[in-house]
């Protein structure tokens, strides 16, 4: 089935995308499109958010109780669903950020200084 490859990609992205969403919401409530846009801009267009993953991820985070959502009005007067970080979400963000940093540091140590293998 074709959904399987899609699902595997989802799992692959899951950890990081969740982290990035939580991070983005640290600056205040935002709607889905805004979150995608922010990630894309802040990563200087390196990270392109697959919207097919974004909404299920939002759904998942909401189910976990890390973010909360309600309908509101956007800057240009459109009705949109805004997501905000909860207390639990803030804690989760801290934990995941720490974990991520450790992982990256460890991998960096193994890979050696930048350009060493080049």
């Amino acid at each position: 089935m074709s959904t399987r490859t899609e699902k595997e990609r989802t799992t692959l992205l899951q950890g990081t995308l969740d982290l990035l969403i939580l991070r983005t919401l640290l600056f205040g409530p935002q709607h889905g499109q805004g979150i995608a846009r922010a990630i894309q801009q802040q990563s200087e267009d390196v990270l392109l958010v697959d919207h097919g993953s974004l909404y299920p991820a939002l759904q998942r985070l909401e189910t976990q109780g890390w973010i909360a959502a309600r309908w509101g009005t956007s800057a240009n007067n459109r009705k949109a669903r805004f997501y905000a970080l909860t207390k639990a979400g803030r804690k989760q963000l801290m934990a995941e950020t720490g974990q991520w940093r450790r992982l990256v540091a460890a991998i960096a140590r193994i890979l050696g200084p930048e350009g060493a293998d080049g």
Partner: protein
Amino acid sequence: MMMRWRRKRTQGDFDAEIESHLQLEADRLRAEGAGEEEARAAARRAFGNVTAVEERFYEAARVLWVDRLGQDLRSAARTLRRGPAVTAAAVLSLALGIGANTAIFSFVNALMLRPYSFPDLDALITVSELHPQQGKQATVRPSDPGHPMAPADFLDVRRESRSFEGLAALRPRDYTLVGEGEPERLAGRLVSPELFGLLRADAALGRTLLPDEADAGRDAVVVVSHGLWQRRLGGAPDVVGRPLVLNGRPHTVVGVMPPGFNYPPGGVEVWAPLWLSEEDKAARAVLSLAVIGRLARGVTLEQARDDLATMAARLEQAHPRTNTGRTFKAVRLREQQAGITAPFAALFQGAALFVLLIACANVGGLLLARGLSRQREMALRAALGASRWRIARQLLTESLMLSLLGLLLALGVAAAGVEAIRSSVPADITKWVAGWRDIRLDESVLGFAVAVALATALATGLSPALGAARLALTDVLREGGRGASAVRHRWRSMIVVSQMALALVLLVGSGLMVRGFGRMMERYEGFDPAGVLSFRMRLPESRYAPGRPMGDFYARMLEGLAAVPGVESAAAVGHLPGDMGPVPAGAVSIRGRTTPGDLDLPVADYQSVSPDYFRALRVRLVAGRALGAQDGPDAPPAAVVSESMARRLWPGGTALGQQVKQGRPDDPGPWREVVGVVEDVTQYWFDREPRSTLYLPHRQVPRAASFVLVRVAGEAAALAPALRAAVAALDPALPLDEVRTLRQVVNDAMAILRLSANLLLLLGGVALLLSAVGIYGIMAHDVVQRTQEIGVRLALGATAGEVRRLVLGRALGLAALALLVGAPAALALGRLMASALFGVVRPEASSLAAVSGGLLATALLAGLVPALRAAALDPVAVLRNE
């Protein structure tokens, strides 16, 4: 789960969010200078497949758990496919376990839960009378309608009791049917016409009996069974109104019962009206009627029992001579045979449960081992946020899948098992067991099987899940999989030890059963059933007057049979020893000894035997002389007693020369001199003690219905036609029924015991095999896990022998622990079986020892291959690999 549901969003809400996203995106693009149409299309393009996202929302939000279940199922299927041999073994052992339980339950269901198909079965109550004396020689038999009632007491209860909608009485009556074909003996009952109404059973053809047909002169009508109608009446639809000659008297067939009608059990084929003579109606001393009733609406069994107790007290006052100490016993019809079936059912259901538990332990161990070989994967998943519950659920899903596969196979196993069990017990025995012919796999049995499978899944998945939950996951990661080995070992060892303990209990149980069976066979060898042919005979009273003519005919017939070439001796006996049928029994009076009341007289079986009986059966004479040709009709009345009767009635004295009489001292029969004492003959295999038997000369006390025993020199069965011819030469209208060798009689009677032995042996064997696999599995796994340690030991100079001892020692240690746990349980089971199976089997230290030895040997054998593998390790290669 509830939380998730409450947070559920509607599809519309989600659609609105996507729509808003598209608008926002389009707004942005427009702001960057794109045209209206272009912006919308680009936004949609950037978003991707809207439907796919919506679908994903659906999965994620609405049925999150189904989605996860799907993942679990797929993953479980992958795992199971990866090791097809192991999976097959697991499924097979579960199928055996579930199948055995299902097969046994189908018996429990048919025999105990709904032995009869009558509406509102629980309102049907059998009533019987008990008095203190009766317990002495009473035995339970599947055919026994409980203790019967005296006709006068029955009539009083029927007239006065308010607890019953109605009561009906039954009295056994055998019929000889003469007509086209061979004469045939039919089991029948004289019944109160109300019986059919109380049972709510109607005739399939014609009608049942009418109330006024219980009057003298109007009672020559019969209702016949479906089987008889098919077999002897050609299944003719116009059978109603036809004449049928029974016991030399014409009867009219008024109805045919439907095929499933099975009351009372015992292959009854004729129901005729019971009419009571004036003498009968006044009879209070002789208990001759079986009674069944239906509780009146709203009356409970307890109320009926209270009512009957009041009646008993009143009758005791009115008729102290006969009714002192007499009580009524009311039992639900459904539970009537439970005394016999319940111990067997408990035994087998228990054994089947043990096998299932062992199978569960095996499969659980397997899953755990498999789970642990993936422990790094699991630890990683746990580190990435998978909860332990999620991992446990994965294992549970695997076990669920295994049990459901097992369930499918189990239904086949159960169907085959039910068929095998059913066909291994002869119809002559099973006709006494109500519900036997309706044993099948129906909805309730299927429901039971599914419940067992689910419980199995839980039991199988739970132990590895708990085992996995105990793992300290960080340790696993840090120590490369070796860290949790202590926990794992303890857990798996526990599983294997309990497995072996269960196998021990089962094997000791089956060993007991087999030895008990063997001992029973030996007991019957006492009168040497080999080479004896038996058949049953009934002289119609219309042509043979009771008394002298009957005795003369039997004597002539035995002479004729003895003259047949190949016959060593021929004898007649009132009832066949070893058979399951009822033996007439009654009180015995001793001249010169007075007893306070009628009911305190000793009780004995009455057996009329012809001169050659003891010789034909090789029953040993203990004292005096056997009954012989000299005990003719004109000779002084004589009797022989069994050894245990002599011991009971004349403890410390001698029986020889004593005067005894059947019944009460003032009964009309003659006083008889005891001329001999013979060794005990086992009448029923389930008798706890030898019965008292009073042997009477057949010529002095002839019985119209007798068994004829012929000892032959060669092949017994081959002589049957010659014997038939010899009887036909004297009277061609006499039927020879139940022509069998005595060994066959005994075999048939013990069919249920043999079946039990075989079944338990089979279950025990399966249990042993499964636990051997369990031990092998843990030892093999152990060796793999300890490869490095063993390598180090070898490198440090341990010899191959020491390594072998190390591994085998562990296997034996597990077995020893299992013995320690299992032996007390096995002994307890033995005691339980001894009481359930009428003392036929006894727990024995020797069989426990034998089984224990077998278990240790099995453990040794199962540990051998891993031990050899460990000893053959190359330490250099092992250490380099690390």
